[in-house]
């Protein structure tokens, strides 16, 4: 073997690179799979505008009076804010809850079957005073209603 040290390093680097790229290719379908089970791209640390775009796919949001979002106007503790979304829209498929100023704006996505009414309650966290937006997907259109919640003590800072 008349291999210099320099040649050896060159070779091993290129081999390593090839291995890395092949493993990345293998990783891709794995990532795609998790996308369908839990929408990681929608739950990432994003700005509200980008998160919204990933949800609606660029479709416009239609303001609707048929969605009721009940949430306190002023919350003393941002770690625990109860909310209820109800809607009389027919054929509702999904309900999204977003908090505009949270590090992860999307709070939850409820996928409804025809066996349930659009009447959902849960409790969410808010980092600071922000608009809370509830979006209902019905008949292929995104309807929304929003409310501002004033937070006197943030809920994401422990």
């Amino acid at each position, binding site marked *: 073997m008349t291999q210099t040290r320099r040649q050896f390093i060159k070779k091993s680097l290129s081999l390593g690179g090839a291995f890395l790229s092949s493993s990345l290719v293998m990783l891709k379908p794995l990532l795609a799979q998790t996308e369908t089970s839990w929408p990681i791209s*929608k739950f990432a640390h994003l700005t509200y505008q980008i998160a919204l775009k990933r949800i609606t796919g660029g479709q416009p949001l239609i303001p609707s009076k048929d969605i009721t979002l009940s949430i306190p106007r002023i919350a003393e503790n941002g770690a625990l804010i109860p909310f209820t979304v109800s809607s009389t829209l027919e054929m509702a498929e999904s309900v999204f809850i977003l908090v505009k100023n*949270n590090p*992860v704006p*999307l*709070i939850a996505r409820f*996928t409804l079957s025809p066996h*349930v*009414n659009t*009447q959902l309650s849960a*409790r969410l966290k808010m980092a600071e005073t922000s608009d809370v937006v509830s979006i209902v997907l019905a008949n292929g259109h995104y309807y929304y209603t929003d409310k501002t919640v004033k937070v006197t003590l943030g809920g994401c800072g422990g």
Partner: protein
Amino acid sequence: MSSIKIRTKRQPGTTQIRTLIAHPMETGLNTDSKTKKTIAAHFIQQLTVRHNDTIILTTDLASGISRNPYFSFEMKGGEPGDKITIQWTDNQGNSDSQDTLIQ
């Protein structure tokens, strides 16, 4: 002890399902006040509600839901003795499931 508590209440034409789950729902952004280390994200990602083994509702969640999450849903119909199953999985691979019969 299961981490899930379920209460059902029959109303005219509908059944209200309420659930309380014991879970820390850590965002991954908080630091431990003693060790100054970041607390790893630990939150429920998916919650499934079944009525007699038919999925009636699935929920994708993130850390924006409060600690020890509470949910309330409204199901159409529902007879006494029907089975309601609630199951969750979190981002660390844990899961739990609990079923109850409508009163």
